[in-house]
């Protein structure tokens, strides 16, 4: 039962990674790519971590896996903010497609 639940959660988490990788490769600028990476990666990683924790041999191992998830959440959200604010100050301005199209009409 635990095996099945864990595998199900991991399989549920995988599409998020695939989607965020696609976003990293296909999205137009750094802000959109960051959005894809951090949001989707965190959900996908969370599901995979819960899936692994459910299958873990002991509570201690399960808690360690959840701790890893928490640490990655902290680090990746801070990193994303850093990259985004750095890009905002020194890099290209964010694209504003919706405003452009509205202004064009």
């Amino acid at each position: 039962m635990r095996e099945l639940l864990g595998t199900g959660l991991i399989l549920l988490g995988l599409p998020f990674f695939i989607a965020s990788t696609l976003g990293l490769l296909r999205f137009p600028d750094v802000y959109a790519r960051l959005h894809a990476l951090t949001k989707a990666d965190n959900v996908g990683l969370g599901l995979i971590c819960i899936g692994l924790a459910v299958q873990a041999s002991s509570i201690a191992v399960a808690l360690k896996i959840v701790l890893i998830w928490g640490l990655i959440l902290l680090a990746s959200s801070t990193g994303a903010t850093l990259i985004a604010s750095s890009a905002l100050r020194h890099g290209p301005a964010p694209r504003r497609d919706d405003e452009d199209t509205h202004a064009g009409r």
Partner: protein
Amino acid sequence: MLVVDLLLALAALATAGQCLLLPGLFRAIANLMAFGLVMALIWVRLDAPDVALAEAAIGAGITGALLLTVAGQLPASQHSLQSIGSGLSRRTLAISVLVLFITGLLWIAVVSLPKPGLVNEVTAVLADSGAEHAVTAILLNLRGMDTLLEVAVMLCAVAAIWSLQKAIPPPPLNNHYPGLPTLARWLHPLFLLTFSYFLWQGAHAPGGAFPAGAVLGAGGVLLLLTGSIAWMHQHAYNLLLRWLLAAGLLFFLATALSGFLITGTLYGLPPRFASYFIIAIEVATALSIALMLMTFYLFGRPGTRQ
């Protein structure tokens, strides 16, 4: 698992190739850091978690951040270094032949190593060495001289960096990136916990002074770069900093000499006290390693009067 191993090997080759062949310094550094992480995973697959940790912390983390800082300080004109031509020039051919020759020699050396190595010899003296784990016993007792020299090399690197220029104080970050100093401070207790865990674990499982020092050093570098450690830049603490940096090496030397006085061989630890000696050396070296890794990030000699 063969698929995973093959993928890892491919990833290592791909990141190494991209690091060398793609134009642009930033890309090379990013690929080098990715290469370090892949190497760390490979070490995990080879059942060497301590090497993996040191590789991830030093190879990917600390070296990568140093290189990124350097790239940030270079003038923009030097950022787009030309890559070597992709065509097979005569020089590439000669280098490839040389590399293949050296690889062949290494392969022959590895194949002709006695199987199963020195495992039996090490196990035989493990009880007298003062450590329960073979790697720690070798690093700190049986081949203590090598570790001593490694620490000396690191101290020389600090001296070399300090001789280049004055230290560059970290830029004030609070206005633009408020999250970073907070993260560094919040995470530091975890770095300390991991450090203590690795030190304690080193006696009987993979771990020990080098991974512990690398972890604490990485946390310290975060604090230092976010401007949370002001004392290192102050003149009043300069002498203390120098003594602390040298403390690991000095303590190591003192044990080696006292071993010489007690047992008659340099670095011969008397079996009865060996475990105490090893714990003391391990703590001292780990702290010194952490401090040395941090002082790399002063980018020069701190504490000079303005």
